[in-house]
């Protein structure tokens, strides 16, 4: 399935909070903490709303004055980073709807 139509999920043990124009992400299992810039944390906030990647990009396009192709590239690269380090995963939106 096209990655844009997949849902982005944070790992269960991850906790996070916005602190003004930054974000804090805590990986409880590893006792690690990450400080994120505004855009990175906004992606986390949108992920919590159970959005597809396409919906996350669309929301960010409304909020930031950035060309769509640049934004899409940046967001996809960041999502790759999140999934590669195991903080988040992409799932099939259809199977979520079916309770899979």
């Amino acid at each position, binding site marked *: 399935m096209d990655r844009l139509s997949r849902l982005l999920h944070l790992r*269960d*043990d991850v*906790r*996070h*909070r*916005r*602190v*003004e124009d*930054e974000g*804090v992400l*805590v990986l*409880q*299992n590893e*006792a*690690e*903490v990450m*400080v994120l810039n505004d855009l990175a944390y906004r992606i986390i906030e949108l992920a919590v709303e159970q959005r597809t990647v396409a919906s996350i990009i669309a929301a960010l396009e409304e909020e930031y004055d950035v060309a769509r192709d640049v934004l899409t590239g940046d967001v996809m690269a960041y999502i790759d980073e999140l999934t590669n380090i195991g903080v988040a995963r992409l799932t099939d939106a259809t199977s979520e709807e079916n309770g899979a």
Partner: protein
Amino acid sequence: MSFGRLVNRVWRENILFSILIELTYRCNLDCFFCYNDLNLQGRPLDEQQYFDLLDELAQLQVLNLTLSGGEPLAHPSFFRIGARARELGFLVRVKSNGHALGERLAARLQREVDPFVIDISLHGARAQTHDRQTRVSGSFDRLMRNLERMTERGMRLKLNAILTAWNEVEMEEMYTLADALNIPLSMDPTVTPRDDGDATPVHIRPSAEAVKRLFDIRARRAPERFRPAFASRENAPLPSAGTDTCDGADGASAEKHCGAGSSALAIDPVGNVYPCVQWRRQLGNLHRQSITELWCSAGALTPVRELGPRIKHMVEGLGEAARHAAFCPGLAELESGSPLQLYPAAQEKLDIVGKLLKQAR
């Protein structure tokens, strides 16, 4: 930006980041040196008030939430409050004596609250000593069983011990025990008076020789702690509510000595609000004002915030050893009436750390 620099920022800009809530002073143990004021007067906060408080704290951008007591699990709404805190995204720390955390409750705690860490009190390496301090027979054996089960469940645990005249001979054994359990142990040499000023607990303060041995052990176990330069704060251990007032920012560049009243608060069971769990200067009460009103108004917090740089200046004037000696303005105020006054326990630590720093060079 590193986490240390972010903590600096929340101190500097007065962003509430950490909160410690004493849910109840009820407890299933009866520790000799318990600091709680058991004669505290007032109407306890009810469950809805706690829910409203958590909603406000999330809005205020608080991340670290510590549920403490007494024994927090003894509060009838503990699990509902803890689950709500998890739902709102707080990093929850639970301070417990571990006595009630048998199989069923431990499983429930993990499932419903999923704390970042459970801080559990250890009073000795042997049953006789531990039970002497808790004044409950069998508490040591029960704790050991509970710790083993929780470790098997993969729960994130930390042991906290207060060094006392009664357990100081078992100090090394306590570290050995913690290592065998594969649980980190933090040992504090400071026995404080009770929050109402009762000095009874200080009768079992550890000897100066034991405090020195403790610092020797710490230096052996974490030698970088006593080297002149700080290690990078990137990926620093996450501080908890109440304790990030003592540690967490980049000490070299922070403008304040600690985050008490600048990034952290403590709340007792009847809603009194303090700069820190150790600094019992009442700032307000949640029956009369919301936490947002209290935090955002210029009232009682202003003098505390203004003291931050002055305390830092005073501590820096004591030399490099003071950076490691954990001067606490709350304890200073309790013992001497002034948060700027060096109190005996701090002076003793200062002397010991000064010697260790000389040895390390």
